[in-house]
């Protein structure tokens, strides 16, 4: 079964500057398929369209053309959004709230039954090892801790699909390893994980498949065996693909 599918997904940004209309291609005719239960990474240089793709899927951006299906249902669909947990790149939270208050807010907005909210908050904080910080104000937490809270809020409503935008951005080596363990554990639970990154070393360690985006186009989809056969050198393949596309 396909968890996420895009059909000829295109996004063109229109910007007006000093009376002149400027068009920038975000993504172009993107045909992406992410299977249920797999870890799929979207790899690309800065500005290649990774975040644009994610935002289109989530409805933060509207497509210029093309369609998006999640669990074979055409988006936008508010019921299906319930099945998605999202972590943006370097997430900001409400500094004035405590960890518990923030998760309580998100739990209520995610339609979690009232009786389950407290238990679910405790469970997700245990998963991300932030149980002791539940009454700490978010303004007092470090970057790594905030990233973990970000994962906690994404898991709160027990979604089947997780979409993470640059999940290891801003993390130290220990944080990166912990994030890797969390993602692999989530995969064992049968969750579909779709994430974007430009940190190739992490991508090759956990992904089942990798899509390479270059200048808004999906130029190649690689299976794990493709880089395992090259002694784990996903970086070489990636640079090869990107430079071939440029010429």
């Amino acid at each position, binding site marked *: 079964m396909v968890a996420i599918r895009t059909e000829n997904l295109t996004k063109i940004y229109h910007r007006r500057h000093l009376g002149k209309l400027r068009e920038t291609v975000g993504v172009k005719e993107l045909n992406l398929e992410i299977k249920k239960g797999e870890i799929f990474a979207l790899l690309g240089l800065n500005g290649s369209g990774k975040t644009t793709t994610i*935002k289109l899927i*989530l*409805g*933060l*951006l*509207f497509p210029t053309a093309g369609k998006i299906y999640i669990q074979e249902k055409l988006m936008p669909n*508010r*019921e299906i*959004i*319930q099945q*998605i947990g*999202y972590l*943006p790149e370097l*997430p*900001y*939270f*409400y500094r*004035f*709230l405590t960890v518990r*208050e923030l998760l309580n*807010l*998100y739990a*209520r*907005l*995610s*339609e979690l039954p009232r009786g389950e909210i407290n238990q679910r908050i405790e469970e997700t904080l245990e998963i991300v090892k932030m149980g002791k910080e539940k009454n700490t104000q978010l303004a007092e937490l470090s970057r790594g801790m905030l990233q973990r809270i970000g994962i906690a*809020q994404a898991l709160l409503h027990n979604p089947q699909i997780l979409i993470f935008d640059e999940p290891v951005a801003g993390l130290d080596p220990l944080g990166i390893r912990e994030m890797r363990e969390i993602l692999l554990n989530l995969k064992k639970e049968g969750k579909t994980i779709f994430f974007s990154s430009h940190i190739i070393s992490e991508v090759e360690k956990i992904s089942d498949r990798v899509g390479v985006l270059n200048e808004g186009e999906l130029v190649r989809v690689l299976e794990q065996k493709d880089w395992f056969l090259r002694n784990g050198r996903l970086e070489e393949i990636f640079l090869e693909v990107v430079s071939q596309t440029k010429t």
Partner: protein
Amino acid sequence: MNKIFAIAYYTLKENIRNKVFYVLIFFAFLILFSALLFSILGGEAELRLLFDFGLAAIELFALLITIYASVNLVLEEIENKTIYLLLTRPLSRRTYLFGRYLGILFAVYLSVIIMSLGHLSLLGLKKWTFDPGYLFVLFGLGFKIILISAVAIFFSLFSSSAISSVSFTFFFWLLGHFTEELKFLGLRLSNLFLKYLVKFLYYLLPNFQYFNFRDHWQSGLNVNFIFLTLLYGLVYTTVCFLFTSLLFSRKEF
């Protein structure tokens, strides 16, 4: 409804845990105390001066808090991307907007209650006997806040910077108190284009003069007028909110 109140609640918390909120209330109290000093110079009109000056100060600071909460916090939420984690949940944009709006109203009303209690204390010091009409005046102010909050949120989404949002909102508030003068000016103009422009502005701007219940308090209450005024306020706010909702539904992040 649960979601609307969840958002309204966190909006209220956001404001009451914000230093700017308390700074503005502090300055309001400073102005109220200065009103006390000025009133001493007023001789026989001492109480009247304290009364009017105090209410004007409450209205001004309620406006400032409304503008700050509506413009700054909404724009900040968009700039900080904290809005991403709200809109990627099963939450309609209209629900988010209405919840935010309600929360801002709660926060501003709370500030008005605090400032009014301070004002009443000062009036009490001057042996003023409480008149329920005072609450009626605050009721009128409450409706002004309902209107200007809707306008402020509209401008915070319509314009790209806080400064322009604040400017437009303040412009609307200011001109909204001179709509009758604008109408008078329009009748006196000979240039057809300017005449129609002024007429357009007269209908576009919210007529805040209707909500100056202070003016009606002493002369007696006209229930019909009050009812029509409140209806006007609700219709204007609803139309403003619908435009804001439409704009917001098309906004990309």
